[in-house]
């Protein structure tokens, strides 16, 4: 029983980190129909920038702000200077974002080196909560809480604000949305930058327990893809449910069947694709 409870909390915290990453990927796809293979790179940028700022200033707030800002600015350049020119050409977008995946990975390698690094945890969140035999790190609980908070905030943003309504309209029918006077290109850029900022924030949060290292961009990308494929492309609730499924499956898979750990998330995904190609919440 102890094992199950501890693994459940580990899985939940990983799921909430995945949500921060997959939400952006999914909504960007929904609004722009872009498969962004460079999405994991924003995680890498966020993690590394946070690391540098933290060691220079010692402030976690500054580190988080710098990480978000760095991810958002790189995304703004990528979107306005390159991606925007290839609207509706998914193959060009795939190759382009894959190129940026390589470029960003190599630049990070030059700047931050090849050794895996981990962000220190704030002293406030360093300990563990103990219930009898069950020991759960406070930081894991914190990540779970932050993930839930962001899920709620994003839901409000999408369902209750004008910007969210415009984004949802662009998902459903971009042409009609244009016709109603929404500046869709500007909307696209704002969605893309917001998604990247979220992923960079994920790099800051995940830097303490997943770590930042060369190849993390790729791993994060794969996990996020499984989440959005299971949840359904373009759906925020889908990203949330998908994150929970993938986070828990991955954690229990790793603990119970180490040799099949990736298979335990990829196989349900393939199965779901066979039954419902658009994912759980996709249209």
């Amino acid at each position, binding site marked *: 029983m102890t094992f199950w409870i501890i693994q459940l909390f580990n899985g939940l915290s990983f799921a909430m980190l995945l949500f921060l990453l997959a939400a952006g990927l999914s909504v960007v796809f929904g609004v722009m129909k872009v498969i962004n293979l460079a999405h994991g790179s924003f995680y890498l940028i966020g993690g590394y920038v946070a690391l540098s700022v933290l060691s220079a200033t010692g402030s976690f707030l500054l580190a988080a702000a710098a990480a978000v800002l760095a991810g958002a600015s790189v995304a703004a350049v990528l979107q306005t200077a390159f991606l925007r020119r290839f609207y509706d050409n*998914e*193959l060009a977008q*795939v190759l382009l974002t894959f190129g940026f995946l*390589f*470029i960003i990975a190599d630049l990070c390698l030059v700047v931050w080196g090849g050794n895996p690094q981990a962000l220190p945890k704030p002293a406030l969140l360093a300990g563990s909560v103990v219930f009898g035999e069950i020991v759960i790190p406070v930081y894991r609980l914190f990540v779970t809480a932050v993930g839930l908070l962001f899920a709620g905030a994003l839901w409000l943003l999408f369902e209750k604000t004008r910007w969210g309504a415009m984004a949802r309209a662009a998902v459903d029918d971009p042409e009609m949305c244009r016709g109603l006077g929404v500046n869709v290109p500007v909307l696209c850029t704002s969605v893309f930058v917001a998604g990247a900022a979220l992923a960079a924030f994920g790099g800051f949060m995940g830097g303490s327990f997943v770590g930042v290292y060369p190849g993390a961009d790729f791993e994060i990308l*794969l996990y996020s893809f499984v989440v959005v*494929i299971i949840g359904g492309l373009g759906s925020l609730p889908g990203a949330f449910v998908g994150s929970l499924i993938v986070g828990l499956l991955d954690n229990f898979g790793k603990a119970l069947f180490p040799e099949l750990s990736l298979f335990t998330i990829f196989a349900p995904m393939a199965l779901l694709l066979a039954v419902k*190609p658009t994912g759980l919440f996709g249209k």
Partner: protein
Amino acid sequence: MTWIRAGAVFLLLVSLAVVPWLLSPYDVGILVQVMIYAIFAMSLDLLLGYTGLPSLGHAAYFGLAGYAVALISTKLWTGAALAPLVVAGLAVTGAAGIFFALLALRTHGVYFLMITLALAQVLWGIAFKWRSLTGGDDGLPGIRRPELAFGLSLADPTIFYFAVLLAFVLITAFLHVLVRSPFGLALKGIRDSESRMLALGYNVWLHKLIIFVLAALMAGIAGMLFTFYNHFVSPSDLSLVLSAKVLLMVTLGGAGTLYGPILGAFAIVMLENMLSAWTERWLLLLGLLYVASVTWAPNGIVGFLAGRPGAQD
């Protein structure tokens, strides 16, 4: 014009036939890589360029065939000859191709990209994590090149070169015929307007299924040759990186043309070898190449040379 073209092809074949005696073993090795990647890229072009099916998981069949011959020849039947290995490799690849096609062909466009990517990742995940069978990310080393008849063996580099050359020429000739056949023209019709082909009474789904499996088998041939060439197979032969690389070869050379992917494979293999010898930052340069090719040569080298947008063979 056709005579000039025939002469050029003849000259190219003659020079390819004398290459082992003119170039260094290292350069012959590069040429072998170019031809193997060319077969691989042409197989993807059948889907992408001729039928309009953008697969982002084409490494699945390349790597799967490689793992099939590697596992059989190292664990199941150590003295296996070439023919049974190739038959087994193609059977596995063909079965996977049919199964994946049944799933992927239910979708269109960008969803097709995602599903092919996802299916390839399933295989990659198995190869990466199932250590006791696949060796995990260490891969399977020590794969022997099989014996041929009459005391010949693929272990001899010159014989291996000619085996790859033979496969390359036969497959190119086959594709030359295929894309001009009624079946090939129907594929182009599906690419340009699927609804019109449906209205004309074509079984679009069956055409797609056949070409999907054929492309998988061709990629499998390339994968087996590559495994024998390296004496090694690893998860990178199934990876998204390889799928994207072969996609770049096709688009850089010119999708929807028969010779574009060959040019693309040649360009990428040469660049990769030159750049990695010259600088440690070749990953950065490869990334820039992706960006540059999409930005400045959207129709590929062939399209660029022909000077007209969307030049089709």
